[in-house]
């Protein structure tokens, strides 16, 4: 296998992009990434696109062809593949892209992620998100995605793994970090009390515990590490991309206080990169709900079980803290256009590893880790980028 590098990144602003269509945002992110890599576009020989549900959000399937066409790649007949894994669609598209280059099948791949969620009303959007749980035995019984996470939170509080305040602190952390991210949907800090008092979505979780509905796209360009210096002075090495599965329904797990797929994907990624959790300088984790941030931080080994909540509460996870988490603002504050999320995590980590994250830049970046989750931990990707 060949080592792979990220040589270009780009993303749109995340948020309610009323004047932009799915094709507009997909094209924009791709153009920015190709420009950042210093390419004309003719060098690209493969495309992978993370997208969860264009078929339901905009009634358009077959978006591989759509993006290839509107980005001009179809004129070179570049193969385009859409990847779907619920909330992990972006992370999984990234992994497919890395595998394509590592294997030697492709030499220059663009990985995009895009979701246009605001072309349907909020109840429809939530119903689409709920369909990433087990439709037959969870969603159609009345369990929403928020309520499944709320049930995890409730049990965590019951067993003393985290307090309500600690869970709310995940949102406070993401919002504080997003203030310095010009692409973030919400560039406003918030307080623990505001999160806890926010209108109830699924008790104990309120609106400020939940990632928003967003439009947005992100893209990265990959090539073999040995060729990377021809294109950029600051390539970033892909040290690992791993993926793990678990049961579709949450109720079929041995434990709901931890996502086994995160633990396993992390173990595989650390082994591949030859590092351990303590070597991670910065992490982007899937905080679609605040409780998910607590689980992620513990399952990735960044904090011991029962200690992540305290870390969020004490600000250890802020951009300037000892273990920065979600310097981008995470899903909660940067926004969560589902298929784009996993790719946007790679965009943020690439900036961190290059040292181009502006006000969000952490000190001495070495390894950046991204964790992207589908459903309630049913599919998880963990990717590790290395500064070289």
């Amino acid at each position, binding site marked *: 296998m060949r080592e792979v590098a990220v040589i270009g990144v780009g993303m749109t602003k995340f948020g309610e992009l009323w004047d932009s269509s799915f094709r507009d945002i997909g094209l924009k992110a791709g153009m920015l990434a190709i420009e950042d890599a210093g390419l004309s576009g003719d060098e690209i020989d493969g495309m992978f696109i993370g997208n969860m549900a264009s078929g339901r959000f905009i009634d358009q399937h077959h978006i591989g062809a759509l993006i290839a066409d509107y980005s001009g790649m179809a004129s070179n007949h570049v193969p385009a593949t859409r990847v779907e894994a619920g909330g992990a669609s972006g992370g999984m598209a990234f992994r497919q892209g890395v595998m394509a280059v590592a294997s030697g099948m492709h030499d220059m791949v663009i990985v995009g992620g895009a979701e246009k969620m605001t072309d349907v009303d909020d109840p429809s959007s939530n119903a689409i998100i709920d369909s990433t749980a087990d439709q*037959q035995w969870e969603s159609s019984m*009345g369990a929403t995605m*928020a309520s499944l996470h709320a049930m995890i939170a409730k049990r965590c509080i019951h067993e003393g793994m985290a307090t309500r305040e600690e869970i709310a602190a995940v949102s406070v952390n993401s919002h504080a970090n997003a203030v310095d991210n010009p692409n973030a949907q919400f560039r406003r800090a918030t307080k623990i009390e505001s999160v806890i008092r926010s209108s109830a979505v*699924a008790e104990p979780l309120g609106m400020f515990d939940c990632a928003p509905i967003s439009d947005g796209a992100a893209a990265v360009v990959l090539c073999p590490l040995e060729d990377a210096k021809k294109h950029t002075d600051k390539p970033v090495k892909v040290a690992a991309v791993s993926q793990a599965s678990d049961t579709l329904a*949450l109720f079929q797990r041995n434990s709901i206080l931890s996502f086994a797929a995160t633990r396993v994907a992390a173990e595989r990624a650390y082994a591949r990169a030859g590092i351990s959790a303590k070597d991670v300088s910065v992490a982007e984790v899937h905080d679609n709900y605040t409780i998910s941030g607590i689980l992620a931080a513990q399952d990735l080994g960044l904090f011991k079980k029962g200690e992540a909540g305290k870390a969020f509460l004490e600000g250890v996870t802020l951009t300037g803290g000892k273990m920065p988490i979600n310097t981008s603002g995470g899903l909660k504050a940067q926004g969560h256009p589902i298929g784009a999320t996993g790719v946007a995590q790679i965009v943020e980590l690439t900036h961190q590893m290059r040292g181009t994250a502006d006000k969000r830049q952490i000190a001495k970046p070495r390894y950046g880790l991204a964790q992207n989750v589908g459903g309630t931990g049913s599919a998880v990707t963990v990717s590790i980028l290395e500064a070289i």
Partner: protein
Amino acid sequence: MASVAREWREIPGRYNTVGTKCGACGKIYFPARSLCPKCRRASVGKMERYDISEEGEVYTFSVVHDAPDANMRMKPYAVGMVKTTDGVLLTGQIVDIDPHRIEIGMPVRTVLRKIYEDGESGVIHYGFKFVPKW
């Protein structure tokens, strides 16, 4: 709108919580599976019908305020994970009680109720819910 067949074929599980027990390792599954994920090939042809216990206790729950269209009229409503006396977890709504009086560990039993309807002329979906075992 979903077809009638889609609902009809799931009736044993949705109305009567019929699951399966692996004849090879003895593990109980709900919903029914034709393959034991642990024994895989060794379980083929050995998955037996198993009626999940109707009694259990609340393992965790949430009170839902932001509800999908189908459940809009019921909100706020409680949804929970119930651990049956077989040790199996089920997800469903907890009804016949003020949602804010529900507690983890509370004894419940399964009952058959209307879950939702596909508009005014579509299928009426029935299935199990949980009620307090007073």
